[in-house]
């Protein structure tokens, strides 16, 4: 376990080395969050509440929405795994006493921790100071938000790993990154919460694994789910995570067998 911690730590440190990137990312993040909030303010205009959701709640949703997806760069997991498999670099990993997918996830965890501290928290704080942000609906919802946040991280990391493994067979990782982005924009609730979706579309989207990445954590914070629902959907999310983990393990085994058999 400690090696993976070391991987994560060194990834965290490496991020600091490129200061221009840190500043660019910080500004980019700030613009993005400001803009998403601005879009909602424009949409609401002078209306106080739409579909039982107030503007204040919507602004809070937009701020929280960036918290998970803002910290993780799924594209580096996809291209990291995809590239290592394609170039055969992964063969080296098969000899080491560490698992390659776990290595990639640990490094990305280190980077995500960095971005969370340096990028997400400050930008959310700044925008919240300007537009205001609601506290969690109750202490219970606050605690569950943290649990949902960690689950969200796990699911997005596993999904990216899955896409990365698929990239090995498809010989392209760029298009898979684009696809992932497209799916997240729509089906995670990142841009529009499901309560504004047409009812049937919302019903389907709310049960796909993407929903746990943005929609559920934010909905829990706002108290849109009661205690029983909160726990039930958490269980469902765990189920999805387990399913994805099995998928990753399976594809990983297939890919590495193929590499060993073909000699890279």
């Amino acid at each position, binding site marked *: 376990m400690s090696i993976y911690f070391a991987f994560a730590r060194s990834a965290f440190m490496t991020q600091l080395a490129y200061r221009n990137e840190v500043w660019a990312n910080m500004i980019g993040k700030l613009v993005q969050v400001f803009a998403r909030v*601005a*879009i909602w303010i*424009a949409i609401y205009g002078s209306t106080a509440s739409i579909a039982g959701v107030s503007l204040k709640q919507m602004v809070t949703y937009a701020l929280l929405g960036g918290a998970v997806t803002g910290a993780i760069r799924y594209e580096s997991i996809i291209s990291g795994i995809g590239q290592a498999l394609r170039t055969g670099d992964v063969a080296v990993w098969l000899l080491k006493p560490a698992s390659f997918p776990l290595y990639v996830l640990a490094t990305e965890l280190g980077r995500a921790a960095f971005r969370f501290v340096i990028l997400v928290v400050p930008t959310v704080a700044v925008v919240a100071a300007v537009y205001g942000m609601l506290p969690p609906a109750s202490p219970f919802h606050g605690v569950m938000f943290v649990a949902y946040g960690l689950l969200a991280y796990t699911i997005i990391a596993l999904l990216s790993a899955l896409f990365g493994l698929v990239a090995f067979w498809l010989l392209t990782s760029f*298009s898979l990154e684009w*696809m992932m982005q*497209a799916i997240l*924009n*729509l089906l995670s609730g990142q841009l529009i919460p499901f309560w504004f979706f047409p009812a049937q579309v919302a019903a389907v989207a709310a049960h796909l694994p993407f929903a746990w990445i943005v929609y559920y954590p934010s909905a829990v914070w706002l108290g849109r789910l009661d205690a029983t629902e909160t726990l039930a959907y958490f269980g469902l999310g765990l189920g999805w995570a387990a399913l994805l983990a099995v998928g990753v393990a399976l594809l990983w085994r297939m890919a590495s067998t193929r590499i060993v058999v073909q000699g890279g």
Partner: protein
Amino acid sequence: MLRTLRILPRLALMYFRSQMEYRGAFWIDRIAQVITYASSFAVIWILADRFGSIAGWNWSELALLFSFHLLGYSLGACMSFTQMRQLEEAVRLGTLDTLLTKPISPWAYMVFSGLNPGYTGHALLGIGMMAWSLSIVAVPWSIGWVAYFVAALLSAAMVTGATLTVIGATALIWTRSNHLYSLFFGFWELSRYPLNIFPTAIQATMLSFVPLGFMASVPVAVLLGKPVPILGDWAGPAALLAGPFFVALAMWHWRYALDRYQGAGG
């Protein structure tokens, strides 16, 4: 100059043939593109369907804004994006060095040897959507209006290409520049919405340092006779001049960066 023009189609053709060596990946890229745009349109459609209009722009006007953005972007990006994104790697691996020893402009070589056929997909999608939205938007048809439309579209493409080139050329000085693309695409996402929904600071930025406001929001607002923040009455000519102005700036920056180029080290 004339000789350079003769070489460019050949470069584009060689790139296309190289790509065709990986036909499977090429078609998967196309599928990914369709999914990406389907999702973007779905987002806008859901918003328009639910809320009717955003900041005084109705659904068909937003669709025109969207298609103008998409078409202008694909024209500009096919001449710049994937090529300029490779520049960072070209610096690191030293391939840029080899280009600099050839009697041809390294910019022209890079751009044309990477002329991405994938953008035809974007362009077709943009044209289709544009035709449809033009058929339902109240347009004050006239020769002048159409001429302005075409000129503004070219200007938008130039702004796109210039901005992406400036970012790419920065790699010659800093050796890394790809992180700036995430900044670009942050603003890029915003430039598909009417400019007046944003805070003044973001509006000002999008009309100056990151001139993506000229990609669609400003020209389409002018075309539809809607007010443009900050620029006011100057918006009309500004949208046309932005393209040439930022292209000149990008050319100057490219030369400046080449003079500062430090190589891959060693």
